[in-house]
């Protein structure tokens, strides 16, 4: 016999962490607090809809449901939802974050990753570049070997008990300073060994200087490499231009294909940006896979509304485009193609620990960007913002309050996040977007939230097909036939 408290639990759940959605007709119910994923039928969908929108008037909601379903069916739905709740698979309580956050305040800061700006200069002139064509509004310069060494020391000295550390060579175009990269990598490996730690290196490049020598170097050092390319030639060449104004597609594609072949198609991502010039960006993702690439990441541009940045009206178009992308990628995957689209890679089984789930980005307290002159900023997107200058690699972090500020920006300190169903998967979004668009680290960018939620839905849809394959479609067909028989 259902109690009012059962309805209360369902009402609280559907208005908090439990979220139902349909992607290409597949009805999915997610409890982001429990981490559980379910397929549901129309009766459950309508039942949850009624409870969600009844404002606590459960009797009214049930009367509404009785117009469409028999009492027997409604009872069945209720019984199943309650038994799933009793098993901890639905309407789960949120983990006790308060206790965790209290304890965390006593923990010392440990630096985990650095984004080294090896070069504040670039050999391309991309229209949408947030780095102002490489120099972030600062003077053009290359990082010296001494600054690089000192950055490695800063990382190791402040890494506490962490064993796995990261350095990303970034720019501008970091390969303009290849000699320093070689030196810093060798120095980093040597020093990490002395500390009994390991540094994983990443290189983000526009590929123009990705020659044989560089390929051998990054492969030898097992670097993860992020290769920039936006997709179709016509799209890429409209924005990603060489210094002489020509498009970069032809030369870049050739270099990328040679490179991924040289490392057996492993440990890389081809990373593209889409803008309001290609709202049909799924075609660009498909194009990248058509080139024979296996690991692709394409994401929205960071820019105010305008030539490149999105207007509010564009967002619903982009949501539909993500659905088209998910459907297309599932088809390709089911036909046997190797598909790794970064933003659909949601770990359904274990996921991250609570510490990561409440604060996805470590910018400003465990992750920093270092400029060629050694200045430290919370992340690469804050470089050049004088208010966010935190110190330098020679004297360390001077602004400890800012570290505390960034550490305190988590899903429970952001009012919008606290009530959002996606918070344990998205983990609060990008600090830089929040600051640049809303002037506060604690107010996430709304349009980014909408797209993030859509990516999560599509990611779950993709992962379900990845795990269960064609059985999902067969199951849904079977379920439909049962519903017909039942009615």
């Amino acid at each position, binding site marked *: 016999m259902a109690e009012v408290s059962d309805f209360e639990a369902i009402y609280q759940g559907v208005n908090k962490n439990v979220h139902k959605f349909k992607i290409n007709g597949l009805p999915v119910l997610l409890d982001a*607090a429990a981490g559980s994923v379910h397929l549901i039928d129309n009766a459950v969908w309508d039942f949850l809809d009624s409870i969600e929108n009844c404002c606590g008037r459960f009797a009214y909601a049930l009367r509404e449901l009785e117009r469409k379903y028999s009492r027997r069916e409604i009872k069945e739905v209720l019984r199943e939802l309650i038994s799933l709740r009793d098993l*901890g698979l639905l309407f789960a309580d949120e983990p006790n974050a308060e206790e965790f956050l209290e304890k965390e305040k006593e923990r010392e800061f440990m630096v985990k990753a650095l984004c080294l700006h090896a070069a504040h200069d670039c050999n391309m002139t991309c229209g949408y570049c947030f780095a102002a064509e490489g120099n972030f509004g600062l003077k053009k310069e290359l990082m010296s070997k001494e600054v690089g060494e000192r950055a490695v020391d800063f990382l190791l000295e402040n890494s506490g008990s962490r064993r796995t550390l990261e350095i990303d060579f970034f720019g501008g175009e970091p390969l303009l300073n290849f000699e320093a990269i070689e030196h810093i990598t060798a120095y980093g490996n040597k020093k990490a060994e002395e500390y009994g730690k390991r540094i994983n290196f990443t290189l983000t490049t526009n590929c123009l200087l990705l020659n044989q020598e560089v390929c051998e170097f990054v492969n030898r050092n097992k670097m993860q490499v992020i290769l920039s390319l936006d997709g179709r030639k016509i799209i890429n060449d409209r924005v990603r231009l060489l210094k002489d104004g020509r498009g970069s597609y032809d030369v870049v594609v050739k270099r990328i294909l040679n490179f991924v072949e040289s490392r057996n198609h492993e440990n890389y991502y081809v990373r593209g940006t889409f803008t309001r010039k290609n709202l049909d960006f799924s075609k660009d993702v498909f194009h990248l896979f058509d080139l024979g690439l296996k690991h692709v990441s394409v994401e929205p541009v960071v820019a105010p509304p305008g030539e490149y940045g999105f207007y509010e009206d564009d967002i619903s178009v982009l949501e539909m485009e993500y659905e088209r992308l998910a459907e297309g990628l599932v088809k390709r995957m089911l036909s046997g193609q190797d598909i790794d689209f970064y933003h659909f890679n949601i770990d359904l089984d274990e996921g*991250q620990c609570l510490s990561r789930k409440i604060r996805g*980005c470590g910018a400003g307290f465990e992750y920093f960007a270092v400029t060629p002159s050694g200045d430290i900023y919370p992340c690469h997107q804050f470089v050049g913002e004088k208010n966010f200058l935190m110190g330098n690699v020679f004297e360390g972090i001077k602004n400890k309050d800012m570290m505390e500020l960034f550490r305190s920006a988590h899903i429970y300190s952001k009012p919008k996040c606290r009530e959002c169903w996606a918070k344990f998967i998205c983990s609060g979004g990008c600090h830089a977007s929040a600051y640049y668009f809303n002037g506060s680290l604690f107010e996430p960018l709304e349009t980014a939230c909408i797209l993030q939620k859509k990516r999560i839905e599509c990611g779950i849809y993709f992962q379900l097909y990845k795990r*269960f394959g064609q059985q999902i479609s067969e199951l849904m067909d079977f379920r439909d036939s049962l519903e017909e028989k039942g009615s």
Partner: protein
Amino acid sequence: MKIKIFLAPVLVMGIFCLQPFLCYNLVTEVEFFRWFKEVTIMASHVITLVKGVLVKSDRSAGCGECQTSCQSACKTSCTVGNQKCLNH
């Protein structure tokens, strides 16, 4: 043969007792199971595909060995949903 004869009434009784708990007849339920062996919980209206672990997790403190989101394939849209825990 004798055992089969003995079991027959038990089976019939079993089906009879289970009927109220099954939305559809036993044959379709069996078929349902056969079609979808990996599904963890079978029910009439909800099928649980992934059980999840967060509320049971005792890994709240975090070892910090995982990859920093922005260091991987994205540099502008941070998320941890697609980051694997290195302890698993």
